[in-house]
């Protein structure tokens, strides 16, 4: 009898749980294998960096935030499958950045999930999908776009280049033939009157297929532009810049992704003097310890998509702090509503969310490749010298009419 009793006591001890609060579960569905791995890892590590800092300060809702990586393999079917797994694991928040196509899949999956599972909603934090459509046609209440878009990059870019006298009055637009390139071309044309330039020619070319840009360079040469604005990334940017350099043509490039890791090393001296508009530049941090902390965490200073991601996730943690569930159940809708109110003061200006389409209103930094910068890129002696920070109000663009957001009652 005594044995039975003690067994019972042990059993109840095992079964009766210590009263635990509901932990916040964050799923990072990134491209962790395949060709986009290097970018995917950056989003994941920048997001983890901020969330783990919050865990060091006591976590959220009385529990450490549970962060889990899911590998979408860089494609939409992988993302769809990992999304289901994240739902099965009870995720409250999904973070994803690389590829607008994957972002399109996830934002739609989240929207449908939330329609079908009232009370168990999920919030999607888009850290890198820049396609305008995501905040237009595909916008919905539970999706937040914590990254720039084409108009937010082009506006500041041409503004600063004009001020520096590097834009000139003849702008050449060359972009990739898909939604991003089309958004870029549209943005380049739309700022022509404001900054007093003429778009001498626009070109859309195949994405990452062209090995030799010489014919395009000949076309550029014939148009006699003063500057070239391009949203190209990866090989399309490198090969284009190299072809222009080889031809001896003297134009300034205004780019959006020149800060992608490896570009400066690959382009060499040819990169000097060209511009990039990006969401952040570590050189502008008031406290140098920030970049050192990140380096201690990830092994390198924050570059490329990382400064923007860090700010975006920090804004999210502000929204978390605004809601105290006192160890009870987490209400994702309340977090989403708090996101709309959240405001983060960064060293380069405030970041907040536009209520109408959940686009982040954020400062944009325009930098120029120079020697002797504080954080040289890719082990070279060159890096991105911040020229000017364009304020959030100046960088933002009007809400797209196609966004019709249904809000929870």
């Amino acid at each position, binding site marked *: 009898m005594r044995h039975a009793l003690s067994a019972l006591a042990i059993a109840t001890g095992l079964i009766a749980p210590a009263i635990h609060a509901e932990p916040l579960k964050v799923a990072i569905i990134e491209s*962790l*294998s*395949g060709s986009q791995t290097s970018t995917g*890892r950056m989003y994941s*590590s920048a997001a983890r960096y901020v969330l783990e800092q919050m865990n060091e300060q006591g976590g959220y809702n009385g529990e450490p935030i549970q962060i889990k990586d*899911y*590998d979408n*393999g860089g*494609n*939409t*079917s992988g993302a*769809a*499958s990992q999304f*289901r*797994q994240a*739902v*099965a*694991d009870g995720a409250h928040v999904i973070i994803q950045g690389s590829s*607008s*196509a994957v972002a*399109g*899949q996830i934002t*739609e*999956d989240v929207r*449908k999930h939330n*329609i*079908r599972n009232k009370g168990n909603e999920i919030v999607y934090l888009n850290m890198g999908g820049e*396609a305008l*459509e*995501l905040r237009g046609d*595909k916008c919905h209440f539970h999706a937040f776009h914590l990254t720039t878009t084409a108009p937010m990059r082009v506006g500041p870019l041409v503004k600063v280049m004009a001020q520096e006298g590097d834009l000139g009055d003849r702008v050449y637009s060359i972009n990739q*033939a*898909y*939604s*991003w390139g089309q958004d870029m071309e549209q943005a380049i044309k739309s700022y022509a009157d404001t900054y007093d330039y003429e778009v001498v020619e626009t070109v859309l070319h*195949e*994405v990452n297929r062209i090995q030799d840009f010489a014919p395009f360079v000949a076309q550029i040469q014939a148009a006699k532009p003063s500057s070239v604005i391009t949203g190209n990334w990866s090989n399309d940017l490198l090969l284009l810049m190299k072809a222009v350099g080889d031809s001896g043509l003297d134009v300034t490039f205004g780019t959006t992704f020149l800060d992608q890791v490896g570009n400066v090393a690959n382009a060499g001296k040819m990169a000097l003097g060209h511009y990039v508009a990006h969401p952040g530049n570590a050189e502008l941090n008031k406290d140098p310890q920030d970049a050192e902390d990140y*380096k*201690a*965490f*990830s*092994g390198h200073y924050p570059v490329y998509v990382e400064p923007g991601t860090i700010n975006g996730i920090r804004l999210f943690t502000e929204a978390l702090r605004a809601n105290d569930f006192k160890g009870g159940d987490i209400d994702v809708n309340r977090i989403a509503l708090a996101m709309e109110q959240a405001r983060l003061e960064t060293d380069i200006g405030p970041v907040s969310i536009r209520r109408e389409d959940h686009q982040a209103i954020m400062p944009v930094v325009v930098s120029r490749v120079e020697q002797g910068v504080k954080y040289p890129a890719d082990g070279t002696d060159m890096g991105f010298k911040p020229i000017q920070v364009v304020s959030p109000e100046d960088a933002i663009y009007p809400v797209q009419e196609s966004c019709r957001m249904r809000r929870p009652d």
Partner: protein
Amino acid sequence: MRYRFLLLALLVVALVVVPPFLGLGWQYTLVNALIAALFAAAFNLLMGQGGMLSFGHAAYYGLGAFGVLHVMQLIEYGDSRFPTVLLPLVGGLIGLVSGLLAGFFAARRSGVYFALVTLALAQLLYSLAPHWSGMFGGEAGLSSMRMPSLGLDFGSNLQVYYLTLAWTLVCISLLYAYTLTPFGRLTQALRDNEQRVRFMGYNAHATKVLVFGISAMFAGIAGGLTAIANETANYQIFNSHVSAQVVLHTFIGGSALFFGPIIGAAVITVFTFVVSGVTHSWMLYLGALFVLVMLFAPNGIGGVIQAHVQRRDSLPWRRLVAPYAVATGALVLVALGTVFIVQSLEIVFSEQYRAAVARTGQYADYSLFGMKWALFSPLTWLTPLLPLVAGLLLLRRTAARIRELWAGGGDPSACPPKVPGATLRSRA
């Protein structure tokens, strides 16, 4: 024969009964596995039975998916009353028409040239789709929502699973029945000797086009099921890796057997889901699996099973039990050793670990299999090497024994077929 039916019935019962008890992730993986199985079976009709290796089957799969999505959008936004249950038919129809069209051109050539034409046609769609936003929704693709139909709301994954299961079972049965028809025999004759088919008075080209069309039709149905399950599709569905994947499934499963590709697709889909959830190196494991199957069981998993089934009466099963058990154990040892080494390397070369080294200046112990390991301790590396080497040696010895039993253990009149033991010889 009776055993086979019993086995199939058991499998079907398991597929019906088990999923409600599984998590969402698993349910969705099973949906994917079923779709992949149907796609592989459709592909193998062309490759295994017709002898035509298509490198562009993603085209018909994708067209089926987009066709179904268009109809789904009509149901969602319009007042179309097309029942959701019959949606895959749309995919099948589109697959059939596009398959006949593509087959007409591709089947004019055979062998490598045939493969290249199919590849080119699929790549054509791949580069066209992102630009044709009216048809393929541009880069973001098309999206729709499953609407309630015939009293079912199709909101839960489980309903989608049963819809997929029903369609997959029906289609695979049809594909199997096809192999038993005279036309199915003719398809096999095409593979074995096209010249002879022509001399027998058949129109070889027309037959090939028809086989291509039927294969594309079932691929289209599989694509339609994907569209229903994902509720989205974008141009990536035409990517060559989708075409390559079905080839991979078919080869791992074994193209000579009807059920081979089905087994291959199911195994690989589940393997990918499980392993990619655990480690970032899942592609390495998948590749290793492929290489091993190609090296030691060129007829695939299905081929190994078939070899056993064929010799079931002549094999000395009782004497084989022990060596098979030992071989399994040895394989587990080798796998454990390999996994230990790969995972150790993954951890040590990870950004986090390197950052920690840069920060602290020392190589900290890492945890694996619930234990702490010192990076530079010989013990850390002996631990995986020991089971690895022991397993390999053991495998070598048992393989010899198994070969012996296969060769002479039974009825001497039985011809020596291609068996795993025979292929293991190349290692010894």
